């Protein structure tokens, strides 16, 4: 088996293993922990033995743990994530529209933040220590520090209330109208996410670009008399790809978690705000499902980053570790 294929398969295997373990954690946390789910749901009414037992049986809590886990896992894989305790409808049904919304939101944020960060990151590296560089660096440092909801509220204050009243402060997406006709409701949450993520990507890209620019092989290219354009495009860029991919994927993975607070803030109907509601209502099946989805996205993003990095680095491609 060619070393490249082997390397990729190992990575995928590890990713699957992690997902498997993640599912165990999610399951164990929500069903196997003391703090009895049935009791938690019933609250005071748990004193009524009959109802308590009935609920336990309904939820399958009276069977041994491994059986419970396996049947739950089976459900997950086949798309049956149980019913929401709050709305008594299948979780998958309630999630589908929300997942779409969040997906579009994250996509927009990614499509904006990645090119902007790549551009700023490489430009600041090329114009190191210039006024431009210093401004961008200090700006990134400050933005990177701020929690997402702080950025969000500042944006609201800026655009939707006091200073300008251009944009809606709350995104009430009409579920009957297709997404692409309601895009202006995505603007503020997407902008918040972008501003939250872009500084990280920019800073790391700047650092790795500087490292490439100061490398021995770039020096050698200059000493061969190559014009700057060639030095940059032919010699520098291919080596800056791998770190660029890594950091982009990792930060996009972060977005999977960043949506939680941002969606809640803007009342955006996505899985993030749904998670907050479900946690508040102790809607366990819903919490399980959303946690699984988010964790899966995270793992997949990391996996893609790993594999893309391998494909892009000749050293790793030819089997060296």
């Amino acid at each position, binding site marked *: 088996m060619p070393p490249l294929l082997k390397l990729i398969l190992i990575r995928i295997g590890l990713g699957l293993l992690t997902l498997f373990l993640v599912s165990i954690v999610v399951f164990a946390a929500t069903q196997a922990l003391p703090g009895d789910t049935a009791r938690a749901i019933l609250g005071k009414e748990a004193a009524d033995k009959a109802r308590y037992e009935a609920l336990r049986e309904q939820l399958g809590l009276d069977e041994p743990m491994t059986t419970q886990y396996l049947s739950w896992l089976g459900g997950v894989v086949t798309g049956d994530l149980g019913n929401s305790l709050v709305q008594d409808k299948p979780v998958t049904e309630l999630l589908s529209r929300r997942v779409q919304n969040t997906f579009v939101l994250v996509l927009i944020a990614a499509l904006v933040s990645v090119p902007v960060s790549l551009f700023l990151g490489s430009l600041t590296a090329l114009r190191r220590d210039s006024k431009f560089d210093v401004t961008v660096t200090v700006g990134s440092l400050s933005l990177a520090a701020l929690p997402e909801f702080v950025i969000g509220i500042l944006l609201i204050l800026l655009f939707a209330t006091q200073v300008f009243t251009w944009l809606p402060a709350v995104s009430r997406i009409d579920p009957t109208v297709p997404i692409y006709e309601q895009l202006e409701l995505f603007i503020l949450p997407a902008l918040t996410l972008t501003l939250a993520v872009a500084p990280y990507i920019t800073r790391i890209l700047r650092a790795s670009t500087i490292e490439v620019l100061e490398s021995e092989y770039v020096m050698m290219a200059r000493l*061969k008399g190559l014009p700057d354009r*060639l030095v940059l495009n032919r010699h520098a860029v291919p080596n800056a790809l791998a770190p660029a991919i890594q950091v982009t994927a990792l930060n996009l993975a972060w977005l999977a978690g960043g949506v939680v607070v941002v969606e809640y803030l803007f009342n955006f109907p996505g899985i993030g705000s749904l998670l907050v509601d479900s946690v508040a209502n102790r809607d366990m099946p819903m919490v399980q499902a959303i946690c699984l989805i988010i964790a899966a996205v995270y793992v997949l993003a990391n996996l893609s980053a790993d594999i893309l990095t391998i494909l892009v680095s000749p050293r790793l491609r030819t089997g060296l570790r």
Partner: protein
Amino acid sequence: METTITEGTGTAPAREAVLSVEGLRIVLDPSGVDIDDDVSLVIHRGEVLGLVGESASGKTTVGTSLLDYQRRGAKIAGGSVEIDGRDVLAMDPATLRSIRGAAISYVPQDSSASLNPALRIGKQLIEILEVHGFGASAADREARLAQMMAEVLLPSDKAFLRRYPHQLSGGQQQRVAIAMAFANRPKVIVLDEPTTALDVTTQAHVLDTVRDLTKSYGVAALYITHDLAVVSSLADRIAVMYAGKVVEVGTRDELFDDGHHPYTRKLLASIPDITGERALRGIPGWAPRPGQRPSGCSFTPRCDWAVDKCREAFPPAEDVSPGHRVRCWRYKEVGAHRVADAIHLRDKSLSARETQEHEVISVRDVTAYYQHKETLHGINAVLSERQCLSLVGESGSGKTTLARCIAGLHPHKIVGDIELAGKPLARDARDRPRATRQSIQYIFQSPYSSLNPRKTIAQILSQPLKVFFDLSRNEMEDRMVKVLEQVALDSSLLSRYPDQLSGGERQRLAIARGLAAEPTVLICDEVTSWLDVSVQAAIIELLAALQRDMGLSMLFVTHNLALVRSISQEVAVMNDGRIVEYGLVDAVLEDPQADYTKKLLSDTPTV
């Protein structure tokens, strides 16, 4: 600056000066501290000028300056670099680009880092032709490429050219760099220690290639190196640098037989002599770094000839004879003192084996593994009491592995017997009884890595004392002072930290730490590889004296065959995990039996 012909100096007759460096000054940026000052050199057509210097001499920075390039952190502050009359330092960027890689090219020290890991080597080779507009078509360029590769003895088939740098060996990478440098038949070539990272055999090949190509194309070459032995076989003329200044320049013969600068003389005396005639003599002290150079002549603190004048001002350049310049106030007296008289002859009795002593360490049929691979195959060796055995080999030969097995630092599978005074040794040092651990002490290769930078010297020295002995505080302090004396270090260093010491001092400290345990066996693993030649000589002197005076049994691991006579009585030559030759030092070096030993001897550059 040279306008007159270099007559009667033992080199070829009149040639034009192709490269002329005048008053070059390079400083640290932004502090403005000097790295190099007032460097002036001339190189003629077809001539190789060796630029020799040790640490902090500034020689490496001179190299890239000739192409008007400095890394971040340094800046060219003055002087001129003329190639065929045109000053490189005064050129506009476009002209500069046109001469880089064409009129003047550069061969880097470490091609594994200088070749772009993301590009195939074919591409990197062809682009130097493309950029300088060679040939009328792609076919022309490919033809030239094939010719280039043939000159450096590399294949030029498609498959080979499609390789990435990491798929080539170190020697091959360096050849690629040389091919690139000669591609456009430059007038000047700057070679920056191109063989430092290579083993002796590969180095010999590369040197041959460089010599041939410079001669056939009439290129003026600057060969930067710390290794005088290498440069003696390659260079027509040599310039010696110390602490940022050129202190002497002349033909090879002039410098070697008639050096007029105290540093040149001492440097020559510190080169290991493989014939065993000359004793090794080091230079005490160490070379000052930029910013820490004393006023006046920087060599003063280490110079036997120093007088007050030397501390006041830096001596100007004076001509000993046409083409032979030196910067020393007392050069006439130095020159009058004949080199031949000043050579210390080695005490030959040192390498004579004493009467049959007991076996201290015996290694029988040892095979060692590293992750399922055999790295040592069936080794048999004996270290006798009060003797020093050298383990010589190139990297990958297994010499360090063997040393580590004996020391208990090879935590992998070992088959066979290793015994200390007849008793079998456990594989891992931690499984050995305390007395055993105490008897065998190991000195590591890198003085920068073997001392904990967060600890004071006292703390470092007290470690073995605490582990092996039960002493009161006063007793410990006494011991520490004593052991520092043994390695010629002052006791005031006890409260200092390792990074306040020079490389040579650190290695002495490492030796002191080993001695503090009062061992019977001392294993020295390439302990001078990371040190300047002059410092190396001092350490070898120290170790040889300690071994004699304290009756230690010593295992001396090195890749430098030339060193073994200066320190050991017996030598084991290793290759590929096996001992290929084993015997008394004199016998093995004068009459080698194994082919590998013969090859190693012939490839090792000598002065």
